[in-house]
């Protein structure tokens, strides 16, 4: 069935709410207004005001409430409108939610989901356009996944709601309106921690996440080389086996990231694979990322921020030609 990513998310939540009365939804303007990005259309009407609630502008308040509700019997699905807003409530996710299972010697679970829109491309400026996986990556007790479209959003959302741990789910804001085929149902649930190979290829392994999955696919389609394009889908845990195996097979790994170069999620992948596949790599791992600058406002500049398919093609071409790491486009400016 064709649906937009925001519809797929709504459907995934609704499907879980149908099956499990403990699943509740709250966040800013998610109930009456059905979500700033229309990711909860119809939920209030269908499930009523006890299970679908608008909150004050109190991220610490309602994320803390999610922790308490999750520990005592509900399965809250909360929404952080823009992932940057997690900055005012960070403690509740990385220090409270993530550690309560451990701190109760396993006697309390914290089955909560923090959904957040993320990423650049819509002209929201530097405080509303980042992906920020790096904020969460490495936090013991937390899971982290990123949707790349309607289909993965559906599968990951249902898996996140069913998980007994706190899960942060990032949704590329620029993709909410994009349509894909989705088959609602159990079979479409995506196990957290698994990646998906979207293209077979022999010359290079291209790992992407969220919005960059489409950049990588477009690049592969346009390029002269043949790449295995993998949608990582989950960062905590991430699919080490599949990525290392592919890198060993092709001997080359290119990671396409929406974030800045320093400290981006790709450093985790590059660091691990460089060691795990050391003997099998024909060339250095290449991270294709944005420069180390805030996301600029203004259409042209913001477009420059996110790696383009053309840029990915150029970087991989150079990698294949030289078997050494190409310089990024911004070298002259940094």
């Amino acid at each position, binding site marked *: 069935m064709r649906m937009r990513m925001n519809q797929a998310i709504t459907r995934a939540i609704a499907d879980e709410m149908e099956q499990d009365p403990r699943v509740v939804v709250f966040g800013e303007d998610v109930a009456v207004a059905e979500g700033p990005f229309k990711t909860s259309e119809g939920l209030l009407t269908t499930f009523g005001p006890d299970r679908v609630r608008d909150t004050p502008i109190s991220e610490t*308040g309602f994320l803390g409430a999610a922790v308490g509700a999750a520990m005592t019997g509900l399965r809250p699905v909360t929404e952080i409108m823009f992932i940057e807003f997690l900055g005012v409530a960070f403690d509740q996710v990385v220090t409270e939610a993530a550690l309560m299972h451990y701190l109760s010697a396993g006697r309390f679970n914290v089955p909560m989901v923090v959904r957040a829109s993320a990423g650049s491309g819509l002209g929201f400026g530097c405080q509303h356009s980042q992906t920020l996986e790096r904020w969460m990556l490495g936090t013991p007790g937390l899971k982290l996944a990123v949707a790349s479209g309607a289909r993965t959003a559906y599968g990951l959302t249902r898996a996140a709601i069913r998980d007994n741990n706190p899960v942060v789910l990032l949704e590329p804001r620029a993709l909410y309106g994009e349509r894909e085929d989705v088959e609602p149902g159990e079979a479409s649930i995506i196990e957290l921690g698994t990646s998906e190979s979207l293209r077979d290829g022999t010359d290079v392994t291209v790992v992407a996440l969220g919005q960059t999955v489409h950049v990588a696919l477009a690049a592969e389609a346009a390029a002269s080389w043949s790449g295995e394009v993998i949608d990582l889908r989950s960062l905590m845990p991430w699919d080490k086996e599949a990525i290392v195996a592919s890198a060993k097979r092709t001997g080359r790994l290119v990671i396409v990231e929406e974030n800045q170069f320093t400290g981006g999620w790709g450093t985790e992948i590059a660091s691990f694979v460089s060691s795990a596949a050391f003997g099998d790599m024909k060339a250095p791992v290449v991270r294709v990322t944005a420069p180390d600058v805030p996301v*600029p406002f203004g259409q042209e500049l913001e477009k420059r921020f996110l790696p383009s398919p053309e840029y990915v093609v150029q970087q991989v071409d150079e990698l294949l030609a030289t078997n050494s790491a190409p310089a990024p486009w911004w070298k002259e400016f940094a």
Partner: protein
Amino acid sequence: MSVTNATDENVTVQRRLELAESPLARLQRMIEIRLVEDRIQDLFAQGLIPGTTHTSQGQEAVAVALGAATRPTDIVCCTYRGHGVALSLGILPESVLGEVLGRQIGCMGGLGGSMHLSDPAIGLLPTFAIVGAGVPVAVGAALQFATLKNDGVAVSVFGDGSTNIGGFHEGLNLAAVWNLPAVFLCENNLYGEYSPIATTTAVTDIALRATSYGMVADTVDGQDVDAMYESIRNAVDRARGGGGPTLIEAKTYRYAGHSRSDKAPYRPDGELDAWMKRDPIDFYATKLAANGELDGRTLDEIRDEQRSFVDDAAAAAVASPSGSIAQMFAHVLAPSGH
């Protein structure tokens, strides 16, 4: 008036000082703000503006009273709904329109956008896009005034919905404990995004929250620029005199939706009309006319002057080039050392 170079400090400061001196200037500025906000909506309709924007039609009296009651050497921390405040403090329309459009003429070169307006010359810190974040920052500016023993005042402008976030609570308590020269100006426009205040806020009269900080509070008609001026002026004078912080609640209303895409279906029928009957511009124009303070001109003449001023500004903004790639890298880190 013709469009002036946005980089000329004297002009912005001059525009600020006018408000303190002349009632007519306050009326003109309110009209200017209304026209700029309307123009921003037009430019959106034309697809010239990326992202989102938050306009302030209906809240002009609060913005202009703030500009009139404070000095260019004072500090103001405002929110993303800051076009009106920026214009009132003295920033030129082409700098606001240019920034919203992402053009180099914009007050930060077009790299910030609608939610981030700033000009050190008139004490406006980059407007805050994170709800509540500006409140403690204003307290810090007040701390600086107190520490360096000059008589500046810091004003934090925020909405009703922002009073439910932790930064508001921490900021007001800190300002009270340290008895700082700060003014907390809440624009209570009855909604936080799409939510009516009563659905999110345990008390709908924000001034009540001053009790938690033993702070002086004042509730004002936000549509009456003279009443707003009085209230802010008293709070600012108290702060300058070492009397400590004040929480002001301006009862006001935003005519447009929360942001560009919002048609505001959540508003009860007639609410908007009722507020428009108390439009701050008409209200003040009538008053000045009655007192013969329109300088011999009619309201229409004044509107036309402002319109051509804003037209010229918009033309200059649209004509300005977009930000350059070099700008992307220019101001990430400040040069180190003192």
